[in-house]
């Protein structure tokens, strides 16, 4: 590897002045498929999206007019965009609490168990919902939140908390929280598993040393486990935020954005505008907002992992 890497770098830094063997061009056949598919179906549509976002298409005549940045102006004036953006933020924040910090604590608890069999058991059990499709879990919780047949209101009634019972998804005040709660239920096991793997990599001697120094479990958690899994915490935070801005499936299945547009996220509002109302241009402008946010988090992730690789 070292040889090829050096060659590649040399090629770049020498600015094309080094010896160049035409035969090396044959190597491109290994990557041709990937480059063509990516260029065609991943990169080009994203560029095209910006072009579409400056147009308006008449659905009846099919006439496309170029309207500059009018769709972006419309974004700013659209109250649902702000609701959706707020819901995406809410998603991100709640997910960081449960799927990053909650999952970290849970992983530390599990990895502290003495029996390897129990550790493996809990990791697997908590992971199960992550393996199941969001459509299935979304539908499942759609039923769980129903007032007449749902599990949640039935549990509340059994506990004598009738005052809390409500149509969770039909109430503007609770719909988005109900959806986010489902998402935490589904996703925390995934990040717990990743934290568990990170914790397993911590050398045992560090804990032994901490014990000799008289550190209790909380001190060990704070002074050993937490700092040594900080990279994973950072990465998980970035990934969670990225995911929170791409949310679509669960909202679509559970409420479709309702009631009264209160539970829309950017993804579902894009779908609603682009596919139900045929406002392709406006939908593309919403997509551009998602692009901007995920680009920032993506670059953050890249810088983060790169810095880390240098440190190691």
């Amino acid at each position, binding site marked *: 590897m070292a040889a*090829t890497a050096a*060659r590649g*770098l040399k*090629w*770049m830094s020498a600015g094309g002045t080094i010896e160049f063997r035409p035969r090396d061009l044959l*190597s491109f056949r*290994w*990557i041709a*498929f*990937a*480059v063509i*598919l990516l260029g065609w*179906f*991943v*990169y080009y*549509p*994203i560029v095209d*999206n910006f072009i579409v976002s400056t147009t308006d298409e008449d659905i009846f005549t099919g006439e496309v007019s170029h309207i500059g940045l009018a769709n972006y102006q419309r974004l700013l004036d659209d109250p649902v965009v702000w609701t959706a953006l707020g819901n995406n933020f809410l998603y991100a924040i709640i997910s960081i609490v449960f799927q990053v910090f909650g999952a970290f604590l*849970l992983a530390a608890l599990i990895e502290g168990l*003495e029996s390897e069999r129990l550790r493996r058991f*809990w990791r*697997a*059990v*908590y992971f*199960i*919902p992550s*393996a199941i*499709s969001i*459509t*299935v879990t979304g*539908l499942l*919780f759609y*039923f769980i939140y129903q007032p007449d*047949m749902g*599990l949640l209101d*039935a549990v509340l009634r059994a506990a004598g908390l009738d005052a809390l019972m409500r149509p969770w998804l039909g109430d503007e005040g609770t719909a988005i929280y109900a959806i986010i709660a489902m998402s935490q239920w589904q996703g925390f096991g995934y990040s717990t*598993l*990743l934290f568990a*793997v*990170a914790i397993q990599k911590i050398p045992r001697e560090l*804990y032994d040393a901490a014990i000799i120094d008289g550190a209790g*479990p909380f001190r*060990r958690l704070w002074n*050993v*486990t937490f700092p040594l899994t900080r990279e*994973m915490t950072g*990465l*998980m935070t970035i990934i969670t935020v990225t995911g929170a801005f791409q949310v*679509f*499936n669960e909202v*679509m*299945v559970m409420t479709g954005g309702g009631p009264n547009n209160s539970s829309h996220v950017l*993804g579902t509002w*894009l779908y609603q505008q682009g596919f139900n109302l045929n406002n392709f241009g406006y939908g593309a402008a919403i*997509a551009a907002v998602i*692009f901007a946010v*995920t*680009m920032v988090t*993506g*670059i953050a992730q890249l810088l983060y992992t790169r810095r880390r690789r240098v440190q190691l």
Partner: protein
Amino acid sequence: MVTAAPPREVNVWAVIARIFLHAFLICLGVVVLYPLLWMALNGFKTNAQIFGDPFSLPHAFSWANYVTAWNRGVSDYLTVSILVTVASALCTVLISAWTAFGLTRTHMPAKPLIVGFVLGGLMLSPTVAVIPLVKMMQALGLYNTYWALIVLYTAFRIPFSTFLIRAYMLDLPRDVDEAAVIDGATERQIFWKITLPLCRPIIVSCVILHVLFAWNEYLFAMIFSGVAGMQTLPVGLTSIMARVGTDYSVVFAAMTISALPIVIVFFAAQRYFIRGLSEGIGK
């Protein structure tokens, strides 16, 4: 906490803490598993029982609802899902392995540029591309076919799989292929006979992660194969709900059938699963 409790130190508080810890883990386990159990059990109940008594066990374990769900569309959705998942998994892994090989084992010019291009795709989300893709797929005549899904699942997952396989190939020892070069082996022979077999563990992880993705994907599936006969399981589930009306027990049965295969895959291949996930995020 991560502690191996010091031996022989019998401390009442430690015992109490341990009891609380186990109780907590068990409660959380119930919160995770009970809804899934409820889903599977509701598939055995009658509608009246679902509404009347949510906590009870079914009166009789009759497979009738499962059979109805199967016949009312689930078998078709399952076929499409399996087809799309298998085809796109094969394409993705093969193309990604080729690409990773090209990026780690050949004297390709402009390598850093290409690495950037391929891995840069990791940052681009399907949501952002979806509107232009609809027009493109219509123009290509792939709209409402499962070819659209196979192509898109492959294209959008190449960056991630390449990323995993490339990292693995970088760590592989190179003396075997150097020896093969001396013996006159071509790049192609080295790929098929040496590198690919050595990459088996990460290839398995890639396949499993791809299966998890493709089996569960919803946005593309809903937009590009929304018509009857082309639907994958996730899309079919939402449409079965509209078709069977208030016969919820059939919906629960359908949900259970579509969740089961992936849970089985997870338990069968847990090791590869975890490897893929942790390599994918860390490196």
